[in-house]
C-alpha cells in the first residue's frame, strides 16, 4: 500500500514522462508535417516535364525547371571543388599540426564564419567576384556557397580526425613514419567514413541555400552556357515562383521544394549509411 508521499512522487513521474513525450512528438510531427505537405503538394505537381523542360513565360501553364536542376548541380560542383579541399586540409592542420594559440584562433574564426548570415556572404561574394567580372555567374554563386562550406568542413573534419586514438599515431611514428605519412596513411583512413559523412552533410546543407545566390548567380529562365552566365538554381526558383501571383508557378514551386528536400534526405541517409558501415567494419 502506498502512502501519499510515494503516490505524489509516482504522479509527478508519470506527468513528466507524458510531458516530455508530448514535446518529442510535437517536434517530430513538425518534420512529418513539412514532409507531408511537400509530398502532397509537390507530388501532384511533379511530372517528367519538371526535369526536362525550361520554365515558360508567366501566364503559360506547363514547363519545368530543368535549367535550375542543372544550375544547382553546377554551382554545388564549383563549391565542392573549392570548399572541400580547403576545408579538409584546414581540418587536418587543426587536428594534427597545430600548436596552442594559433589553432585556437583559427577554430574561433571558423566558428564565427559559420555564424555569418548567408545573405552577408552573398554580398561579400558579389563585391569580390561579380563586380570585377561585371556580370553575374555560376562562378560567383559557387564561390559564395564554398565560403559557407569551408567552415562546416573544417570543423567536422577536425572533429573526426581528433577521434582517432593517439595510440595509432604513436604506432606509426614508432615504425619510422614521418608526421605527414602518419596522417595520410593511418589517421585519415581510420576516420574516413566520418570525414566523408561530414562532407556529404555539408554539401547537402549548402544545396538549399538561397540568399547567397540572389546576387551572385541571380537567376535565369533559360539554359546558361558554361559557368560564366547568370544561372538558375532550385532555391532561387522556389523563391521567385512562390511569391508570384500565378497558380501554375506555385505548383512548380511545390515540385521544386519536393525535389530539393528529397536530395537533402537522400544525402543524409547515404551519409548515415556510410558512417555505420565505416564503424562496424573494424
Amino acid at each position, binding site marked *: 500500500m502506498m502512502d501519499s508521499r510515494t503516490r505524489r512522487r509516482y504522479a509527478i513521474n508519470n506527468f513528466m514522462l507524458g510531458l516530455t513525450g508530448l514535446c518529442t512528438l510535437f517536434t517530430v510531427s513538425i518534420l512529418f508535417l513539412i514532409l507531408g505537405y511537400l509530398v502532397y503538394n509537390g507530388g501532384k505537381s511533379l511530372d517528367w516535364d519538371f526535369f526536362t523542360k525550361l520554365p515558360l513565360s508567366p501566364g503559360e501553364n506547363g514547363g519545368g525547371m530543368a535549367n535550375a536542376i542543372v544550375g544547382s548541380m553546377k554551382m554545388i560542383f564549383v563549391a565542392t571543388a573549392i570548399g572541400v579541399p580547403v576545408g579538409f586540409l584546414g581540418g587536418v592542420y587543426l587536428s594534427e599540426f597545430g600548436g596552442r594559440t594559433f589553432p585556437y584562433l583559427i577554430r574561433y574564426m571558423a566558428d564565427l564564419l559559420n555564424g555569418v548570415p548567408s545573405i552577408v556572404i552573398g554580398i561579400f561574394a558579389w563585391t569580390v567576384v561579380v563586380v570585377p567580372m561585371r556580370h553575374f555567374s555560376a562562378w560567383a554563386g559557387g564561390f559564395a556557397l564554398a565560403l559557407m562550406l569551408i567552415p562546416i568542413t573544417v570543423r567536422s573534419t577536425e572533429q573526426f580526425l581528433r577521434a582517432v*586514438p593517439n*595510440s595509432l599515431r604513436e*604506432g606509426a611514428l614508432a615504425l619510422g613514419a614521418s608526421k605527414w605519412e602518419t596522417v595520410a596513411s593511418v589517421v585519415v583512413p581510420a576516420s574516413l567514413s566520418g570525414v566523408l559523412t561530414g562532407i556529404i552533410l555539408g554539401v547537402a546543407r549548402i544545396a538549399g541555400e538561397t540568399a547567397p545566390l540572389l546576387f551572385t548567380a541571380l537567376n535565369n529562365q533559360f539554359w546558361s552556357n558554361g559557368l560564366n552566365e547568370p544561372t538558375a538554381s532550385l532555391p532561387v526558383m522556389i523563391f521567385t515562383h512562390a511569391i508570384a501571383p500565378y497558380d501554375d508557378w506555385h505548383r512548380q514551386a511545390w515540385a521544386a521544394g519536393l525535389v530539393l528536400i528529397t536530395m537533402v534526405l537522400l544525402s543524409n541517409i547515404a551519409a548515415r549509411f556510410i558512417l555505420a558501415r565505416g564503424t562496424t567494419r573494424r
Partner: protein
Amino acid sequence: MATPGVASASPVHTTPKLKTSGMYFYYGAFQALHDISLEVETQRITALIGPSGCGKSTFLRTLNRISDTVKNARWEGQILLDNQDIRELDVTNLRRRVGMVFQRPNPFPKSIFDNIAYGPRVNGVKGNLSEIVEKSLRRAALWDEVKDKLQKSAYALSGGQQQRLCIARALAVDPEVLLLDEPCSALDPIATAKIEDLLISIKDQCTIVIVTHNMQQAARVADTTGFFLLGKLIEFAKTDIIFKNPEKKQTEDYITGRFG
C-alpha cells in the same frame, strides 16, 4: 637456445648498443628523471623494473625519441646509439632502427598483411613484401595462426595475438633494438608466456629493452636488470645479482615486496 641471466657463448661486443649519460627528463616544471647513466649490451635482454610512476616508461620512450611528440616534454644529457648521438640522427631513421611495442596492442584498422607491410612500405624497403610479412610473422610466432587470413582485419584477432602482431609489425623493418613498454600487462598468462619465449628466441638478432612491473618476468627473461625509483636509477646489474644479491637496500626492499 639462449638462457637468460647466463652469459652467452656468442662474442661479447665491447661497444654498448645504447648508452645514456647524465640524462634528465622534464615534463614542463616536473622533473621525471634524474641523472640516468646506463649501458645496454648488444644482443641481450635488458629489463627495467620499478614501482608505478618511477620513470622507467619515460626513459624508454626517450630512447626512440617518441617522447618528443609530447608537448612540454624535454630532456638533457646524452644518449648514444652505436656511439652516435641520437639527437643528431634523422628521427624517422632512428625509429626504424629502434622499434617499439606499446603497453596496449595498437594495430592499425587495416588487414593483418597491411599492418605488417606498413613499416617496410613507409620506409621504402625494396623486396618481396609477402616474403617480408611471412618472415616477420614467423619470428613473432604468429604465422601458423594467421596464414590463412592475412586479408582479414587485424581487429579480428585476440588481445594476445594482436600484441604479437604488433611485435611482428615492429620486426618487419629489421630493427637493431626493440623497446617494449610493459607488453604483457594487458594479457593473460598463456599469452604472456608466448611473448616471453618469443623475446628470448629473437634476442640474438635484436637488442631488447623491456619495461615491466612484473618482477618474475624480469627474472625469467632478462640478462641485465635496472631498478628505477622516483626517477633515479638505483641499481643496474646482471639479473642474477639484482634478484639474489642486490647491493642497495632500496632494491632489496622492492624485490622482497616491502613496497611497490
